[in-house]
C-alpha cells in the first residue's frame, strides 16, 4: 500500500526549514518532492538599494559557512565590471583564504556526516581539528566566520612573515589528522557499511540533473570551476580534481577528504610563492553600465552571481545561484528508492545550505495549487487575521511542580 508523508518544514532531522513530500511504499521512498521558501530573506532586492561597497558585506552574509565564496564571487564580478586588474599579492591571499575556507567547510561536513551516520566521536574529533583552521582564519582576517577579506582590487589585509610561518607550522598537524581520517573512512567497517550504497546517483543522472561540486565529482565527473574556468590564481597552482566512482555517500566523503589534502598542498604552495608588492589597487566607486556573470567553486559546488550595473554606485540587479539549489534535482533522484532512515544522510551528503538557496517565495494554496502575488501589507493583514484565532488558553497553564 502506498501512502503520502510530509517531512518538515520543522523536523529534528533537518537543521534548516525545508519540506519534503514523499510517496512511501512501506519504508521505501517511491517519489519525493521538495518545497522551498521557508527562509526567504530578500537579499537580492536589498542589494539593489545599497552601494557596491556595502554589498560586499551583504553578499558575505548570504551564507555563514561559505561566506568567503559568495563575497569572492561578487567581488570578481564587480572587478570585471570595473575592468580592474587586482594586485597579484592580493589575488594570492584571496586564493589562500578560499582554500582555508574549503578546509574548514569540508572538516565541518565530515563531522556532520559522522553524526548523521551515528558515529558521534568522529564528529567530535573533526570539529576539534576544525578549530585549528578557524584559528588560522581568525589570525589573518580578524574574525572566525565573516572574514571580510575582499575588496575591489585585492584584499584588505596583508599577511606578514610571522603569520606565514605560523600557518605553515600548523598545516602539518592538519595534514596528519586528515590522513588519519582518510584511513579511517576507508577501514572502519561500521562507517563504511552505513555510507556505502546509500543515495546512488549514476554518472549519467548527475550530468542530466546538473549536479555540482563534490556530488557531481563523486559520480565520476571531473568538473571543477577552478580547473575549467580558472579565476584568481588557480591557473598557476598545481592541483588535481578529486573524483570517486562509487556514486554514493561514501564517494562524496572520499572526494571531500581528497580535496582537503589537495587544499593543504595548495595552501603550502601559495604561502611559499607569495609574491612581493602591493596587496590592493585603488578601485573606482561608480561602475559603467554593463552586465557580468561570475563563477566560483565554493566548497559545496559551483556558485554563480549575475550582476548588472547602470552607471551609478549601486547595482541594478544581483542574482545569486547558490550550489545547494543546483543540487536539489539530484537529491530527489537520490532519495527515490531509498529508505526513510537514509533521508538525513542523503541530505547531509549534498552539504545543504538551505537559506542560501532561498531566492523566491511563491504563495501557493496547499489544496487548490493556485498561486498568487501579495503585497507586504496584505501579508501582514493575513498574519493579524490568523493571530486573532489563536488559542491563548495555554498561557494560563501553571507549572505543576
Amino acid at each position: 500500500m502506498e501512502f503520502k508523508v510530509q517531512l518538515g518544514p520543522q523536523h529534528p532531522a533537518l537543521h534548516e526549514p525545508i519540506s519534503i513530500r514523499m510517496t512511501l511504499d512501506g519504508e521505501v521512498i517511491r517519489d519525493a518532492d521538495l518545497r522551498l521558501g521557508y527562509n526567504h530573506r530578500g537579499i537580492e532586492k536589498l542589494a539593489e538599494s545599497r552601494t557596491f561597497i556595502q554589498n560586499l558585506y551583504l553578499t558575505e552574509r548570504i551564507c555563514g559557512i561559505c561566506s568567503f565564496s559568495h563575497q569572492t564571487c561578487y567581488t570578481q564580478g564587480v572587478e570585471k565590471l570595473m575592468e580592474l586588474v587586482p594586485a597579484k599579492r592580493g589575488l594570492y591571499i584571496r586564493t589562500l583564504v578560499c582554500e582555508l575556507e574549503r578546509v574548514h567547510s569540508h572538516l565541518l561536513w565530515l563531522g556532520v556526516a559522522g553524526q548523521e551516520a551515528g558515529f558521534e566521536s568522529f564528529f567530535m574529533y573533526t570539529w576539534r581539528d576544525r578549530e585549528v583552521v578557524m584559528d588560522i582564519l581568525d589570525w589573518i582576517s580578524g574574525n572566525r566566520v565573516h572574514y571580510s577579506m575582499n575588496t575591489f582590487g585585492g584584499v584588505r589585509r596583508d599577511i606578514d612573515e610571522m603569520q606565514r610561518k605560523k600557518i605553515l607550522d600548523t598545516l602539518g598537524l592538519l595534514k596528519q589528522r586528515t590522513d588519519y581520517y582518510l584511513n579511517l573512512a576507508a577501514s572502519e567497517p561500521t562507517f563504511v557499511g552505513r555510507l556505502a550504497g546509500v543515495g546512488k546517483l549514476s554518472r549519467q543522472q548527475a550530468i542530466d540533473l546538473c549536479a555540482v561540486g563534490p556530488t557531481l565529482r563523486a559520480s565520476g565527473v571531473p568538473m571543477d570551476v577552478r580547473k575549467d574556468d580558472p579565476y584568481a590564481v588557480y591557473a598557476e597552482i598545481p592541483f588535481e580534481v578529486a573524483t570517486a566512482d562509487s556514486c554514493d555517500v561514501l564517494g562524496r566523503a572520499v572526494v571531500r577528504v581528497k580535496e582537503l589534502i589537495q587544499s593543504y598542498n595548495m595552501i603550502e604552495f601559495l604561502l611559499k610563492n607569495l609574491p612581493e608588492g602591493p596587496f590592493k589597487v585603488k578601485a573606482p566607486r561608480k561602475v559603467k553600465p554593463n552586465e557580468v556573470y561570475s563563477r566560483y567553486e565554493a566548497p559545496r559546488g559551483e556558485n554563480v552571481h549575475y550582476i548588472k550595473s547602470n552607471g551609478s554606485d549601486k547595482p541594478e540587479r544581483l542574482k545569486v545561484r547558490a550550489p545547494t539549489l543546483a543540487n536539489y534535482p539530484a537529491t530527489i533522484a537520490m532519495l527515490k528508492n531509498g529508505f526513510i532512515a537514509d533521508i538525513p544522510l542523503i541530505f547531509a551528503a549534498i552539504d545543504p545550505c538551505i537559506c542560501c538557496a532561498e531566492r523566491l517565495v511563491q504563495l501557493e494554496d496547499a489544496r487548490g495549487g493556485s498561486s498568487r502575488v501579495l503585497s507586504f501589507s496584505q501579508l501582514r493583514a493575513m498574519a493579524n487575521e490568523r493571530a486573532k484565532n489563536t488559542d491563548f488558553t495555554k498561557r494560563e497553564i501553571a507549572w505543576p511542580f
Partner: protein
Amino acid sequence: MSLRIAPFLPELLRSLFNKPVTVKYPFEKEAVPKDFRGTVVFDPAKCIGCNICVNDCPAEAIEIIRVSETEKKFKMLLHNDRCIHCAQCVDSCPTKTYRMDGEFEIAVLDRHQLKIEYK
C-alpha cells in the same frame, strides 16, 4: 584497503587521558588576535566631516554630527547594536580617524545601552 575491527579505538583510549581541549571561557580567556575586529573607536580630533564612513557603512551604524556652526568640529554617534564589525570605516576614512579595539564582550540586555558617543 581492507576493513579492520575498531580502528578508532586507539584514538578514543588516548583521548581518555588527554586534557579537554575546550577553553573554560568566562574563567579562562584566550587573547584576541592582533588584527581582531572588535568595537569601533573614533578620534574626534582627526575627523574632517567628509561623511565617507557614513555612506560606506553597510549597517548604517555611524552618525557624524557637527558640533559647532563656526568651527569644523564633529562628534560621532556609534550605534553599536547595528554594527556588524566589518571595519569598512577604518578602510574608508581618509584621515585614519577610526580603529578597532579588541573588545568583544559587549552584550547587554537593552540595545539602547549600546549607543556610544565619541566627542
